[in-house]
Each structure stands twice: as C-alpha cells, then as structure tokens.
C-alpha cells in the first residue's frame, strides 16, 4: 500500500526523473574522479614503495586525495559543510564561552561570526551577492529607462539600439579590469565597481526585453487609448507597463543570473581577496580543487535561489494581475 502510494507520487511528480538524472551524474562523476586521479595515485604509491594494494583501497585513495584533479562529490560536500554549517557550530561554541551573553545576543554573535569569518563561504558568498544585487538593481533601472526612451523616441530608437547591442560584443573579461582600474583612479572602490560590471551585463536583456514588452500592446488597445485622448504617460502607466510584465520577469531571470556571473568575473582579474571569484582564484593558485568546486557549487546554488526568487515575485505579480489560477 505504502509503496504503491510512493510509486504513484514518484511517477506523477518531478521527483523520479530528477532522482534518475542526479544519480546518473553522480555515477559519471565518481567514475571520472577515479580515472582522472589514477596517475597521481600511482605516483604516490611508487614514491612510498607501496607495491600491493586492493582495488577498493585504490578507489578509496583516489577519491580522497588532498589536491585531486577532480574532487569527489563527498569531498566537495564536506568542504561546503565545513565552510558554512559547521561555522555556525564553532561560532556558537565561541559565543557560549562568554557567560554574560543572553540567548538572543549569543545567536546574533554566532550569525555575525559565521558570516564574517574569512574561512566562511557564507562570507564570500555575501560579498559576491551584494555586488550582484546592487549591479542587478542598477542594471534593471538602466535597462527599463533605456527601453522607455527607445519606445517613446524615434531618435533614441535609431541611435541607442546599435550601441546597446555593440556593448555586448565586448568580452566582459577584457573590460572588467579596466572598469575597476578607471573607477579606482577616480576614487570609486569597494562594491560599486564590481556591481557596475554586473550592471554592464544585466542591463542588456532587460532593455531588449522591455522594448519588446512596451511595444506588445495590440493596435486595438492603443486605438482605444487614442480615442480617450490619453496622454503618453497615461498610455504608458495604464497599458504599456502592464503589457510588458511577462517580458520583465523573463528578462529579469536572465539578468539576475548574469549579474552573478558579472560579479564573479569582476573579482577574478582584480586581485580581490574576498568573494566567490576570489575563492576560485586562490583555489586555482594553490591547486585547491576542492575549494574551487565548493565555490562553484555555492555560486550555482546562489544563482538557483536568485532565479527562483524572481519566479516567486513573478507568481505574486501575475496573481495580483488576475491571471488564471
């Protein structure tokens, strides 16, 4: 009975397909890890004169090297835990040493400690996230403003659109260090230069999407507003803005994920000491592949969370706008 229920639930939902894909990825990953780490492991055995080993011992050793070519999943998982969840544990212990603190301030101390420690991935993720969000916000405002201008002014349509498209043909890796250097020279440093790299990437899908969105009302709807002798701003706020909503959320999902890419890329060529990009960079300097992979997973998780947050806002907005349940 129970298994029948489980089975039907699994078959109907997304759970089973997702589980199948995840386990396939895990299998491929472990096979690749053994393969790629084999040469190094053989070298280790040779140097330490180990001549006899069992297969299981060999596999176990390849999957638990200090600096593997491809770290195994559990190594990454452990590293992730040590630099996030476990931080709370050790910080809690530290906070508890101070007898004077109450439970609330102890909790607060723990959160502050876990998210400011240099070894904490939460700290690095937050550094990158703040640049991402700031850059995304500026990019959204810029993209929407450009789209408003382009839709309302023929001159802007003709003059701006080619530049907007051209801006995206420049590789971000080439322009990122220059943005940082130039802004530093004029005294702007900290989170803003990185955020501006995110902006540079994220304004584009928003601008292009919203131009299309603002132009999406049907002729008949525009005629209707015309018969009311509605002003341009009334047409915009009562018709164009709402017509553009589906386009806004689609472009925002793209924009927020490339904002994250922009923030990480902004950390790479600039010698940043904090942030997911910095973790990637220092990991590659010192051959800390486990650290690189865990930073990658953190970035992926962040992107997933950000995109689904936009999705939540979208669902809320479409419900507000009376969409079919």
């Amino acid at each position, binding site marked *: 009975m129970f298994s029948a229920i489980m089975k039907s639930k699994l078959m109907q939902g997304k759970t089973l397909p997702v589980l199948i894909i995840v386990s396939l990825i895990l299998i491929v990953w472990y096979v690749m890890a053994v393969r790629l780490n084999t040469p190094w492991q053989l070298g280790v055995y040779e140097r330490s004169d180990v001549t006899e080993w069992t297969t299981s011992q060999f596999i176990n050793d390849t999957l638990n090297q200090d600096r593997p070519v491809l770290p195994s999943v559990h190594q990454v998982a452990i590293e992730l835990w040590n630099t996030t969840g476990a931080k709370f544990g050790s910080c809690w212990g530290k906070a508890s040493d101070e007898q004077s603190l109450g439970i609330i301030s102890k909790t607060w101390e723990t959160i502050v400690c876990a998210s400011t420690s240099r070894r904490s991935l939460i700290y690095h993720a937050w550094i990158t996230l703040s640049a991402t969000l700031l850059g995304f916000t500026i990019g959204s405002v810029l993209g929407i403003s450009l789209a408003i201008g382009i839709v309302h002014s023929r001159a802007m349509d003709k003059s701006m659109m080619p530049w907007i498209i051209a801006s995206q043909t420049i590789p971000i890796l080439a322009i990122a260090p220059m943005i940082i250097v130039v802004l530093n020279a004029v005294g702007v440093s900290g989170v803003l230069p990185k955020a501006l790299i995110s902006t540079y990437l994220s304004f584009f899908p928003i601008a292009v999407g919203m131009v299309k969105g603002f132009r999406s009302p049907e002729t008949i709807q525009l005629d209707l507003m015309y*018969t009311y002798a509605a002003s341009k701003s009334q047409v915009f706020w009562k018709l164009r803005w709402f017509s553009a909503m589906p386009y806004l959320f689609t472009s925002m999902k793209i924009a927020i994920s490339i904002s994250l890419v922009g923030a990480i890329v902004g950390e790479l060529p600039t010698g940043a000491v904090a942030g997911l990009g910095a973790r990637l960079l220092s990991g590659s300097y010192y051959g800390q592949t486990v650290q690189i992979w865990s930073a990658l997973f953190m970035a992926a998780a962040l992107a997933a969370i950000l995109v689904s947050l936009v999705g939540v806002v979208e669902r809320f907005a479409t419900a507000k706008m009376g969409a079919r349940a």
Partner: protein
Amino acid sequence: MNPVISAKKLSLTFPSNDGPVHALSEVDLDINAGEFVSFIGPSGCGKTTFLRVVADLETPTGGEVTVNGKSPHEARMNRDYGYVFQAPALLPWRTVERNVALPLEIIGMGKKEKAEHIKRTLEMVNLTGFEKSYPWQLSGGMQQRASIARALAFDADLLLMDEPFGALDEIVRDHLNEQLLKLWNDTKKTIAFVTHSIPEAVYLSTKIVVMSPRPGRVIDVIQSTLPDERPLDIRESKEFFDIAHRVREGLRAGHSYDEE
C-alpha cells in the same frame, strides 16, 4: 438642428503597391441627434473607415467631416464619443469594473462620481454582479457588453460601434441587439453602427446606409419605417422584409454580390 455627424465629399485614399485604394469616395452623409444609423456593405466598402475617420483614427484625404460641429480631432480631445471595437479589447489585468473605470481615470474623474458611473453603466448592460470578474471569466457576449459599458462610461452622446457583435453567435447576437435597442431607447444617444448583417441593420436602425466597395461609396440611404419599440418578432413582419429587400437591392446595385 445641426447634425451630429456631417460628411461632405469625404474621401480617403490609401497608397498601396497596386496603386491607390479608394477606401472612401466623396461620401455625403448627415447623422442627426438620436438617430441609430447602420452602415452595411461588403468588406472594403469603407464602412469601418468612415467610423474611424469620425473617431479621428484616420485622416481623410479630401472633403470635410464635422462631429458636433467640430473637427474629429477636437471632438476626440473633447471626448465627444465612445467607441466600441470589433473585439472587446478589455485589459486582461483589470476586473470588469476597473476596465469600465479606465476612461474615467483618464479624464481624471473623482472617486465617488466614478463609482456612480460604473454602477450605472454596468446596470445598463446587465453586468451587475460581475464587477470583480476578470475578462477571462466572462463569455464573449459578456466581454463585449463590458466593452460597451466602458464606451458609455463617460456619458458621451455619440456611440460609434464597429461590428461589435460580429464575432458572436447568432443567439447571443439577437439577445444583445435587443438590449442595445433598449439602451438606445432609454438614453436617446446617437449611434453609428457598422455591421455585415442585413437583419441586424434592419432590426436596429432608424437609418441604414448601404455602401459598396472599390471605390467605397454610399449607394443608398434608407429611412426605416419601423416603430421605435421593436420586439424581436418584428423581424417576421412584412415591413421588415420590405426594408431588408431594399437593402439587398442596394447591395446588388453596388455589385456586392458579384463573384470576386
């Protein structure tokens, strides 16, 4: 009494790749206050174009037209008319009452007055009780009624209707025709109504304008002899058939029945 709409030698020519298209050619027509005027004719006869010129949605290339003694542009700026399109064109993110409120918001009407107008116009089209519904929750006929309510909302004395029931089935159409007649009887608005349907034109109108295409022109203007009170079964009467016959004659004279 000055006519509400007056057209003199009104012409409109669209340029096209196959040479100019004469959508309207020297149309002379007066529509007086309180009249219900139908425009009938095959596609391309300029009946919709005439309505759009009156509404300032198209600019004529020759002749003159006045609406309430003003140019169409002035009349539009003055919100002298309400326009009902072929499709309901309701804004899907607004409820019925908020759709009706749209023109009132645009003219900047106060909150209390707005609520009164919405209530009254929704009563007129029998949509009381559907204020909070979204367009997708309504049938096609109800959506078109909501769009008529929207056109009535700011009390313009002139109603321009461009095949408002063209997309509806005949049963719903009969019902809406009856309601529209009642509304016209109650409010004594001037209505200009474009249609494809001979029975609809005869049943509704006090005056029928028969038009023909290439170039779009007026073939016949028929003053209806039917009384103002018209039950649905008036359509079985001899008078009704006589008028319908004259409409058909007009269409035939305009080669509307010729093979393309």
